[in-house]
């Protein structure tokens, strides 16, 4: 664990990308993630946002005109998949960013300050961990219009930090005993500086990996909300597609299979890319894993 905390000299010399390129699966994951993010950015620019319904061609199987067939109202499934990643990925990244920032800030302060701050923050994580997230979101969804992706990201992010906060706290508890931290403290550099300039950057690798894991978790949570119909079904994204395909009985119609499977595959691909990416990042930050 210690070498995951301190970037090895080699990383600083050769750069992260160079090191990552040494792991084939990691590079593949990186490319997948890049391609999908690129697609979600480029697709809306080159394609028409609204896909007109065409009931005459509802539930069509794959064909030259519609590579993945059409849905219940005759809209092209491939186009929906290409256009439907934006919200999911945006909310995933946003929620993960919120989670990570809260977890790092509270976790490192709790560990560094200990005492009543630590116990109070630990109590808070206990409370947050006992709240059933989905139920709470459902309740909130009935009070607020959760149409804004930013609001969704904030909500998802602000309920998923406790687990990461605890592991950040554990990391800082060991890091703060390190001699360079003691030296900074005896130079009276100030708590915030010691925590956020001396300690936290030494966990950069760990934080990055956990950020990516948080993205995957947020995507699952978001898609779950849509599939269960707990988030408003406005616009088109992978989650909504699954929900629609399910409610319109795509699984009972042979030619509807691509409609329900396409978004599932898209989500699975994003998650696979992210997981592969974290694996290679782990190898980069902990060279002992790479040797094995």
């Amino acid at each position, binding site marked *: 664990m210690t070498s995951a905390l301190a970037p090895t000299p080699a990383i*600083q010399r050769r750069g992260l990308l160079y090191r990552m390129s040494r792991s084939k699966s990691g590079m593949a994951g990186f490319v997948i993630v890049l391609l999908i993010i690129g697609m979600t950015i480029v697709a809306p620019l080159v394609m028409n946002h609204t896909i007109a319904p065409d009931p005459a061609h509802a539930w069509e199987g794959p064909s030259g005109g519609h590579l993945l067939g059409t849905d219940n109202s005759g809209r092209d499934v491939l186009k929906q998949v290409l256009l439907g990643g934006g919200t999911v990925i945006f909310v995933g990244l946003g929620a993960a960013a919120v989670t990570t920032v809260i977890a790092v800030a509270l976790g490192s302060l709790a560990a560094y300050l200990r005492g009543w701050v630590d116990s109070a923050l630990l109590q808070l994580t206990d409370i947050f961990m006992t709240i059933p997230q989905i139920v709470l979101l459902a309740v909130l969804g009935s009070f607020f219009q959760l149409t804004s992706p930013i609001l969704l990201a904030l909500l998802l992010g602000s309920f998923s930090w406790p687990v990461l906060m605890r592991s950040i706290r554990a990391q800082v508890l060991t890091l703060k005993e390190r001699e360079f931290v*003691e030296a900074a403290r*005896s130079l*009276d550099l100030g708590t915030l*500086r010691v925590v956020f300039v001396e300690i936290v950057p030494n966990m950069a690798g760990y934080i990055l990996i956990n950020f990516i894991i948080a993205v995957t978790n947020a995507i699952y949570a978001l898609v779950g909300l849509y599939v269960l119909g707990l988030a408003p079904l406005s616009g088109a994204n992978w989650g909504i597609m699954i929900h629609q395909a399910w409610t319109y009985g795509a699984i009972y119609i042979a030619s509807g299979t691509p409609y329900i499977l396409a978004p599932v595959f898209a989500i699975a691909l994003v998650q696979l890319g992210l997981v592969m990416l974290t694996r290679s990042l782990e190898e980069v930050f902990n060279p002992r894993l790479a040797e094995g």
Partner: protein
Amino acid sequence: MTTGTASADGTPLLQLDAVEQVFRTKKGDVPAVRGVDLHVNEGEVLCLVGESGCGKTTTARIAAGLAPPTGGRVLYRGRALSEMGSEEKVQYRRGVQFVHQDPYASLNPIRTVFATLAAPLRKHGLATSRKDAWEQACRLLEQVDLRPPENFLSKYPHQLSGGQRQRVAVARALTLKPSLIVADEATSMLDVSIRVGLLKMLSKLRTELGTGFVFITHDLAIARYFGTGGRIAVMYLGRVVEHGLTEEVIENPQHPYTRALLDAVPTMDDDEVGAVAGEARKLRGVDIPSLLALPSGCTFHPRCPLFREGLCDTADPPLEPLAVAGGADRDVSCHVVREAVAEAGRAS
């Protein structure tokens, strides 16, 4: 070399007053430091020597304010740390700095030498601009003999050798112009060929800047070399057992433990045999008792060649001045040596 002097009113720079440190562990309370009185004057060097577990590092950490003692007081310029206000605390922090043993762990691996040196300068308002900080950092690196300083400022710790890192760690301790540096085994991780270079640089700080030192080491030769002109305190199981001027303690050790330690130092020349030849072999036991189950009376008695039943295993000898022939003040905690000296005094 000037021997340190107390300030005009006789107050030492730093004083430990009956300091105790008990660590609470699962196996029981570990008394790492059991009542230590020591002081350092301005510009003076005090070496703490002893084997592992003798409490020298814990004592040093208490002196440097890195760990509050569980008993006793630490006084800086006559003021107890525990009674200091925040303004005084800042003065103490700036006045006493610590240099760690391991130069590979004591520098932040992701910060350049300049960032490491500039942070305390900026924080304490000693440098007003980046340029000012740069110039001061250059001067600091020159003080620790890293020349030309420009070559080192933008380097990361992993680009430096162990000796260079330790010099950077010393330069960082110097940023706040301390009056006292507490150095914990500062040379033990370095290769033998460069240790003396670092010690010479530290000695230079003593002569040029008047910096005082509390120097912790297990190596008596290094204590003798660096502690020349200063004092030495030999620790055993959390207590000081002998204390006096460095040269006198090394040349004419009184406590049986000090004598055994000095005899145990390996030597290159057979003719280097001193007054203590064979003392280590007289020891009745090799292993240091556990701090969890300290022997009664004098804690050295199970190993001591001078052990006298009914005396050493019942009464704990105090650390008191002993009139050593032809020497200055010496403190020794040993019943038998004290009796022998008293008898010799009566006989003459």
